[in-house]
């Protein structure tokens, strides 16, 4: 299989490997470990209108086959990103995807407006796995109606940029959220964000995260992520980008097999900083071995 590229809702990726938001910095941190141009896409750390400091330390904890984080969306703010980071990313070759975080629909829309104007941004990824501060802390992504409202607001201001909505797995019925977001105009869905989790130290009797609760990611969550992607792919007609625990080329193909068009790799970038670059190189021989001749021939062909 020679042709690794894939286009979804106008978003062109030279290969289906995207680095996940919050695990690849602003991209430049990894230029020492591989050629950023080789990646299909780079999702940058969640951007907010104003810079944010995030949560107190400790913010990360290791767990069996995974990790917890409660970074709290520390970021340099959209303005600094656009001015100081974006110009140095190889955005003509690799899709740079802006991950958006805001506290209400209006702020999301404003953020989308700023980014819609940037040539270097290939798509917007709306992170709705965060509390709606106005609605008493329930996550946007946990309520289909709220998720739809944010989607609409962003969509109105996104201009020609494809809008990708990133779903939370911490829900009773992820297909219902997916359908609501699709109906609200989303072009692409990405999932899953982290699972809500917690870890404590029995000696000190303290939580391992200052924030007490954080997000679980890494291989531990792959079965849950894959189930979510499978359910969502069957529920919607728009393309889906799958993620959650991918730590090998086989893992990546599992998500394509259940219906995803592309994948994001997150925590695995911490296993080794050249992980995503190696993944891109490992895909062709694996596809060869599996006798796959095109994405169309493989995607969503799980035999059930």
């Amino acid at each position, binding site marked *: 299989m020679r042709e690794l590229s894939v286009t979804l809702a106008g978003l062109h990726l030279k290969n289906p490997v995207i680095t996940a938001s919050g695990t690849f910095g602003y991209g430049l941190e990894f230029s020492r470990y591989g050629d950023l141009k080789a990646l299909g896409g780079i999702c940058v750390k969640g951007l907010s209108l104003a810079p944010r400091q995030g*949560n*107190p330390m400790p913010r990360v904890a290791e767990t069996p086959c995974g990790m917890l984080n409660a970074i709290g969306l520390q970021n340099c703010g959209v303005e600094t990103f656009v001015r100081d980071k974006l110009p140095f990313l190889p955005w003509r070759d690799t899709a740079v995807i802006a991950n958006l975080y805001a506290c209400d629909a209006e702020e999301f829309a404003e953020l989308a407006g700023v980014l819609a104007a940037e040539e270097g941004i290939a798509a917007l990824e709306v992170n709705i796995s965060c509390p709606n501060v106005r609605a008493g802390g329930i996550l946007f992504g946990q309520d289909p109606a709220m998720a739809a409202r944010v989607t609409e607001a962003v969509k109105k201001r996104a201009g020609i940029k494809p809008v990708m909505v990133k779903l939370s797995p911490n829900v009773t019925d992820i297909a219902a959220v997916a359908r609501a977001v699709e109906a609200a105009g989303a072009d692409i869905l990405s999932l899953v964000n982290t699972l809500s989790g917690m870890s404590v130290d029995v000696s000190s009797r303290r939580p391992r995260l200052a924030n007490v609760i954080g997000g679980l990611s890494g291989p531990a969550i792959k079965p849950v992520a894959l189930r979510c992607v499978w359910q969502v792919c069957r529920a919607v007609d728009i393309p889906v980008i799958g993620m959650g625990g991918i730590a090998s080329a086989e893992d990546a193909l599992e998500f394509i097999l259940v219906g995803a068009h592309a994948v994001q790799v997150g925590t695995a970038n911490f296993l080794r900083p050249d992980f995503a670059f190696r993944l891109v190189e490992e895909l062709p021989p694996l596809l060869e071995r599996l006798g796959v001749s095109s994405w169309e021939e493989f995607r969503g062909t799980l035999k059930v």
Partner: protein
Amino acid sequence: MADAGGCREVAVLSRGAESPEGERHGLWRLAVENPGWTKAVAGQFAMLRPLRFGRELTWARPLSLFGVTPERVEFFIQVAGRGTAHLAAMNPGDRLVMWGPLGRGFAVEPDTPTLLLAGGVGLAPFAPYIAAHPRPDNLRLVFGHRPPLAAYPFAKMAATIQAESFHEEKPGDLDRFTALLRERLADYANGLVLACGPRPFLAAVADMGRAAGARVQVSLENRMACGVGACLGCVEKDAKGELVQTCVRGPVFWARELAAFDGGLETPGSREGCACGN
């Protein structure tokens, strides 16, 4: 693709303790193949991830450079948990993924009297520091430790510079050690003081060093997931109140650059945070 300073899979060349005491107290030297590193500064570190971590242990472990030659990179490891236990049990030929050298090392001011203060395994970065220093006669080392001295590579270091050690055995010893440190620091007004060890030790050194009019650098050991500035897990509040990644802006900082060590009241972490794991 990746440059020589990138991420490489390398083999262990040797592993050994300084002495039977080292073995007993879980203190080991580990030498691995040098993947082509040419420049490295004492105080810098590397991330090491044995293949044997599999998928169970997610993160690589950060370790200070203890020695770099064209053939080998050396570390000095204290077993603190599961990851370091794996590392300290590696045999020649066992493979690990390593990236580095990372971060910023200690200042070298050949002509400034320089006091090295090490607590426990914090001794590690001072071995290459001493080895590379053009004026060892300007260096002095004070080393506090709990396991027996023979467990550490102290003797070799003491052979080239003025050095003394302090064995902390009973609770009261800590006060006597602090008194010793204060006494030594008194001689370093305008001098350079470099400290590596547990956080309370660093805090004490920063305070007393400031009082003595010394310029103090501290090497932080914050928990790290990526080592490259991407995860934002290792941040520390700087004196301006910004949260900076210790893996790229440190691990060595001037004490006055950091909120927790600049003598001001330590500000509690920001509370604007978010319940989601992002």
